[in-house]
């Protein structure tokens, strides 16, 4: 599984980056994204709901968050 690093990037970059990356995935494939933007947990949840993508996990790893998303 690919991991994208959006650490150090602020809103709306993490969302823009994940939106682009998801386009290259096949349905059923997953991708991880790391970000330290404070809006990231709320934004990634909202984005997944809106885009009907499955948020497999969202964890705080101390200095950053890591989300794993499965393409619908």
């Amino acid at each position, binding site marked *: 599984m690919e991991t994208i690093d959006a650490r*150090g*990037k*602020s*809103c*709306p*970059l993490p*969302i*823009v980056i*994940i*939106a*682009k990356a998801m386009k290259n995935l096949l349905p059923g494939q997953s991708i991880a994204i790391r970000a330290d*933007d404070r809006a990231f947990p709320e934004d990634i949840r909202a*984005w997944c709901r*809106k*885009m009907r993508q499955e948020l497999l996990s969202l964890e705080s790893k101390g200095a950053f968050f890591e989300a794993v998303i499965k393409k619908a």
Partner: protein
Amino acid sequence: MNQAAAREAAPSAASERLLSLEREVRALAERTLEHSSRLDSLAEVVRSAGQSEQLSMVVFSGSLDRLIAAFVLATGAAASGMRVSMFFTFWGTAALRKDRAAVKKTLVERMFGWMLPKGVRKLPLSQMNMAGGGPAMIRYVMKKKGVASLEEMIAMSADLGVEINVCTMSMDLLGLKPEELIDYPGRCFCGVAKFLETAAPGKLTLFL
């Protein structure tokens, strides 16, 4: 005699049965085609309904802070699957100027040219401008905090398919020529009718 007649009749009955079968198959095929075209048009309706979520913005202001807000919204919405349409008018139009462009102008147009910001990099802040010190500080802070610069956000918007419409009336008033404005894929020079047509079906329209 009767046997012969029966022999004659048998093939014709069979061929009639064949013919009627053929007719039935044809009718079925036609109905199937009809259904499939109806399904196609239904699918189109569903597809366009899914895309009907859109964000329309009137960008009236030409200050750096307001433009940053406008483009954060635009890129965020486009990345969330929404159609985004921006309509630049008045100072917003002027904010789309290139750093430099040689064009012929009248005296009044030239005067406007001197007073309007020359390029996205030269935009003032709506507050705390401090004779250009404010924008420099904001840009420095943005870079430090990982916020994309306005130029980067405009490039991202182009990449994400955000539509930019430019009000020709403001261009005329401010003496701005198309070749003076930043190159943006599919930029459209238009008026209020085009904006209204685009914005009317959407639920989200902002004036910045």
